[in-house]
């Protein structure tokens, strides 16, 4: 992939103009090259405008008020829910629960569905690719309830070992919980095939969509996903809000998770009845303005088109990966170009990831260093920490060139 080929897919300069932070200099004369969208994305002014306009003109609490502002706020909040539902192909807005982030979405499933449906000895099948968000909640349940955990192995090139799947599914897991895209290797598992096989084996399917939803078209019905969790802040929206999608019949059968206002139908001193879905799972004042702004982020992404975004990032991956691999002594964790996003975790011989990231920062390049909340995956590859450069719609091949150039400087400095 060449630079111009990439840029024929997406009008990146025009997109960049929407993101105020991209005009920033890290130090006088050193412009920001933001390559950490996997941790959190930047926000376009269209999203910030909706966010502040909500507070400046319509702010009120939702669902109960009869006055003008409250009705406007409620309508905006519910409209955001409908936008999110349409964005991921849910069959109705009631299948969308607003939570804080992908992490809470998965915990909600573990606490509510998990504690109601899993008993000692039951199996939850995970993968070695998983982010801590899709490991720790199940470990907690294993410690509390004695459920068992098994893991689909990762291949040396950072993909999932699909050949191991049938054997693992033969153990009859109750749930298969898998990342839709690794935040380390960028690998995008074939969720549709996994879901079909899992369903055939009698398991439900949870997808950790924290990376998938911002970077690829998602249709939960067509993929056959039962639960999907993702975060607004990784898809151009604000922090403080995330989404749990779950199939209506599952949500209806699940017991409540957090108790309080709005999730109830009625309350007496010693008992309560739960509200209808999705409100049953939204206790207390929700992240109202954040959800409304997430709706604006969805609008923005749709106006570009998720197919295009996905294609652009695949093209970027083809551009970046070989160039990275040319840097002497640099090893990429995740070397497949099939089914991958533009995320590159790497380590350099004899140079700690912290030092790599620090030197890159000197050149204005923001990359993350650490285990990226996927410590078992790093352990598997025998490294404690990697540096990670991740690209989104506002990043250019030129920025990749700057990254590569700076990596040669790192080598020089520490060589």
């Amino acid at each position, binding site marked *: 992939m060449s630079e111009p080929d990439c840029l024929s897919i997406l009008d990146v300069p025009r997109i960049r103009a929407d993101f105020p932070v991209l005009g920033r200099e890290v130090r006088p004369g050193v412009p920001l090259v933001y390559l950490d969208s996997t941790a959190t994305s930047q926000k376009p002014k269209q999203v910030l405008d909706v966010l502040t306009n909500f507070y400046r003109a319509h702010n009120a609490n939702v669902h*109960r008020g009869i006055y003008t502002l409250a009705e406007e706020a409620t309508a905006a909040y*519910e409209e955001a829910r409908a936008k999110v539902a349409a964005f991921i192909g849910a069959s109705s807005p009631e299948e969308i629960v607003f939570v804080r982030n992908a992490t809470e979405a998965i915990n909600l499933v573990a606490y509510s569905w998990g504690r109601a449906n899993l008993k000692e000895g039951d199996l939850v099948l995970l993968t070695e690719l998983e982010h801590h968000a899709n490991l720790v909640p199940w470990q907690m349940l294993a410690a509390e309830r004695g459920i068992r955990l098994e893991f689909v192995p990762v291949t040396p090139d950072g993909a999932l070992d699909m050949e191991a799947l049938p054997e693992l599914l033969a153990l009859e897991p109750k749930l298969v919980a898998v990342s839709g895209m690794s935040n380390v290797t960028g690998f995008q598992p074939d969720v549709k095939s996994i879901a079909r096989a899992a369903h055939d084996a009698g398991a439900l399917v949870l997808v950790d969509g924290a990376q998938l939803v911002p970077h690829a078209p998602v249709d939960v019905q067509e993929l056959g996903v039962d639960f999907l969790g993702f975060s607004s802040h990784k898809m151009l929206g604000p922090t403080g809000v995330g989404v749990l999608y779950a199939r209506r019949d599952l949500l209806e059968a699940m017991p409540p998770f957090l108790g309080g206002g709005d999730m109830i139908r009625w309350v007496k001193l010693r008992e309560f009845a739960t509200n209808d879905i999705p409100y049953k799972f939204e206790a207390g004042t929700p992240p109202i303005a954040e959800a409304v702004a997430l709706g604006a982020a969805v609008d923005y992404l749709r106006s570009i088109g998720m197919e295009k975004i996905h294609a652009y990032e695949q093209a970027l991956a083809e551009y970046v990966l070989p160039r990275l691999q040319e840097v002497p002594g640099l090893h990429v964790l995740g070397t497949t170009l099939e089914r991958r996003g533009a995320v590159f975790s790497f380590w350099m011989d004899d140079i700690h990831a912290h030092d790599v990231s620090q030197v890159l920062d000197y050149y204005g390049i923001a990359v993350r260093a650490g285990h990226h909340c996927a410590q078992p995956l790093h352990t598997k590859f025998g490294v404690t920490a990697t540096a990670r450069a991740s690209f989104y719609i506002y990043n250019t091949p030129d920025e990749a060139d700057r990254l590569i150039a700076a990596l040669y400087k790192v080598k020089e400095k520490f060589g």
Partner: protein
Amino acid sequence: MEDLYREQILDRYKAPRHRGHLEDYDIAYEDDNPTCGDHIRIELKVQDGRVVDARFDGQGCAISQASADLLLDEVIGKPIEEVKQISKDDLLEILGITLGPVRLKCALLSLKVLKAGVYGLGA
């Protein structure tokens, strides 16, 4: 207010035409809106597949009570099959006002009760 509390609605709220109970009915159903305490009970007398008389009772806001009264105007004399066809939009047209999400629930409670009744949930 001019728009929301049209004379008709205040009128029906203060002086409903169909409030009360039937000595003898074929269908009755009641339900409430737990959030605000609106409560509606509807009783229907059916002969030869046609609603020959109807009453409602309940308490709550002007919209919920007037809506029930106006709805029964529509229902009385109609074949039960036509009653089943009455839609949300029909009722809102009768009310003739635009409602926010909260008030919509008030306005539609009577229809919800009616539907549950004619579809056989009541006895």
